[in-house]
C-alpha cells in the first residue's frame, strides 16, 4: 500500500478478506435462521457505562449519539418481536485509537432466545472455528484464571492483598483505584499476555462487573455475573451475557453507573427510559454477544494494527 495521504490504509487482500468475512458471517446466521436486522446509528440515548464515551452528533439542533453498540435497540426489538436476531454494522466510541482500537469499528452482535451464556459461548466457538479452522478453544472461569496465574480468588481476596500483588507488578499512581480497577490491571498487564494461542473463553465475571448480565451464585456459592469474554490469541474479541431481563435491577444498574460517572467527573448520561419500558413489557429470556469484526480480521490475517484492516483508518478517514 502507498504512503500517500489520499491512499487507503489497507491492502487489496484485506479489502477482499473483509468482504469474504461478511459473507461467511451472513451465511452462518442464515443457515441457523437468525435474522439480520438493521439498527439506528443515531440514537436519542447512550449507554451509561462509565468507561465508554459517546461521539455526539448534532442533527439540525437535536442531540444524537452515535451508538457504541446496537444493544438497547435490539433489546427493544426483541421485547416487541421475539426472535433470534443479529446485526452487523458500525459502532462508535470517542477517543479510542491504538493498535487494537479505532473510534469507529464494525461489530457483530447477536441474540439467541432461550440460550444461556454457556450455550452461547459454544455458538461463538462454532462461528470462530468455522471462520478460522484449526483454532484451539479453551474455557476458563474468571476465578480459575486468577487462581492459576496469581494464586488468588478474585471474588473473595481482600483489597489489601489485591493491591499488594498489583503494586508488585505494575508501576502506577494508585490513588483512588478501586478493587475492579486492580482486577482489570492484572488482566491487561499479567493475565492477557499469558494467554495461550487460540480462542479462550473467560466466564463468571465478578458481580461488580456484571454490566447487563444476570447475577447468579457459582458452584462455591459466590454471586457472579453470567458474563463472558472471548479472547483470540490474547486479544479481547467478544463480550457476552446471559441477559438481565429484570427492569427493577436494570434501573438500579443505570443508577449506579451514573453515580460512578458523577464520581469520576464524567458527563451525565440519562437512563434510556425506552429500554426500561421494553424490559417492563417483557424481554424474553435470551443470551447476547458482541464481537469485534476488525479484531477478528486483525488476528486471522497477521496484521499488527487494526488500521491495516480498515479501508481508511481514523487518521486517514
Amino acid at each position, binding site marked *: 500500500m502507498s504512503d500517500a495521504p489520499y491512499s487507503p490504509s489497507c491492502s487489496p487482500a484485506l479489502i477482499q478478506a473483509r468482504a469474504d468475512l461478511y459473507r461467511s458471517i451472513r451465511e452462518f446466521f442464515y443457515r441457523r435462521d437468525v435474522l439480520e436486522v438493521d439498527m439506528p446509528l443515531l440514537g436519542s440515548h447512550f449507554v451509561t457505562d462509565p*468507561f465508554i464515551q459517546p461521539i455526539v452528533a448534532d442533527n439540525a439542533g437535536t442531540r444524537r449519539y452515535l451508538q457504541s453498540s446496537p444493544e438497547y435497540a435490539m433489546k427493544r426489538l426483541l421485547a416487541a418481536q421475539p426472535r433470534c436476531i443479529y446485526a452487523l454494522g458500525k459502532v462508535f466510541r470517542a*477517543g*479510542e485509537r*491504538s493498535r487494537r482500537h479505532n473510534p469507529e469499528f464494525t461489530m457483530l452482535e447477536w441474540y439467541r432466545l432461550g440460550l444461556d451464556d454457556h450455550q452461547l459461548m459454544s455458538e461463538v466457538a462454532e462461528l470462530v472455528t468455522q471462520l478460522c479452522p484449526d483454532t484451539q478453544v479453551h474455557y476458563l472461569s474468571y476465578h480459575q484464571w486468577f487462581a492459576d496465574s496469581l494464586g488468588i480468588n478474585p471474588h473473595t481476596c481482600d483489597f489489601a492483598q489485591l493491591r499488594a500483588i498489583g503494586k508488585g507488578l505494575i508501576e*502506577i499512581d494508585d490513588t483512588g483505584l478501586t478493587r475492579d480497577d486492580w482486577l*482489570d*490491571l492484572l488482566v*491487561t498487564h499479567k493475565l492477557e499476555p499469558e494467554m495461550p494461542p487460540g480462542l479462550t473463553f473467560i466466564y463468571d465475571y465478578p458481580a461488580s462487573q456484571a454490566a447487563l448480565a444476570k447475577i447468579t451464585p457459582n458452584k462455591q456459592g459466590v454471586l457472579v455475573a453470567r458474563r463472558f*469474554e472471548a479472547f483470540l490469541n490474547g486479544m479481547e474479541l467478544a463480550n457476552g451475557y446471559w441477559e438481565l431481563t429484570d427492569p427493577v435491577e436494570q434501573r438500579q444498574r443505570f443508577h449506579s453507573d451514573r453515580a460512578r460517572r458523577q464520581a469520576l467527573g464524567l458527563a451525565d448520561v440519562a437512563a434510556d427510559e425506552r429500554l426500561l419500558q421494553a424490559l417492563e413489557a417483557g424481554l424474553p429470556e435470551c443470551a447476547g454477544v458482541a464481537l469485534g469484526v476488525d479484531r477478528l480480521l486483525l488476528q486471522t490475517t497477521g496484521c499488527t494494527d487494526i488500521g491495516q484492516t480498515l479501508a481508511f483508518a481514523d487518521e486517514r478517514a
Partner: protein
Amino acid sequence: MATYSINDFRTGLKVMLDGDPCNIVENELVKPGKGQAFNRVKLRNLTTGRVWERTFRGNESLESADVIDLDMEYLYNDGEFWHFMDPNTFDQFAADEKAVADAAKWLREQDKCVVTLFNNAPLVVTPPNHVELEVTQTDPGLKGDTAQGGTKPATLSTGAVVKVPLFMNEGDVVRVDTRTGEYLGRANS
C-alpha cells in the same frame, strides 16, 4: 508550564515525572472489557538514562519538560567543566561531569555534538556517532599482520582506549563508533 493530558502522549514527547525530565519511548492504550482505559507508557529518564514502564489513567496529565536538543561545538575543558557553544547564537554552556559522563572520552575540541538542555542547562552530552581520533599510545605495529586476527589496545588523543588491529601505529588516525566503542577503520586522512 504546559501540561500534556494522556491523550496528547506520543513518542518523543518530553515530560516531567517524579521531578525528572523524561522522553516518551512508547505509549499504548489498554482498555479492559468494561473497565476504564489505561495507558502503558515506556519512558526514558533523561537524567539517568533508565527506561521504565509506567501506567497512567485517562484523566492524568504531566507537565512538559523544558528540554531541547541543540547542535553545539565543543570548545574546551577547564578541569571542572566542559564548555560548548551554540554556533547560531554563540551562546556558551558549561556542562558538568554528570552531563558529560562517558562522552568525555570522545570529545575533541571543535567537534560537533548534541547537547540536551534542561531548563537551559546541559543535561546530556551526546558525541557524534563516529569520530576520527589520533592514536597517541600503542605497542609497536607488527609487520605482516595486516590481514587477519589479533587486536591490541590503543590510547587515543582524547584518552579513550579502543581495540585496534595489530598493524596500527602511534600517529595513525582511527575511525571509531562512539556508541559501541568499536574500531571501524583507518581514517582517510
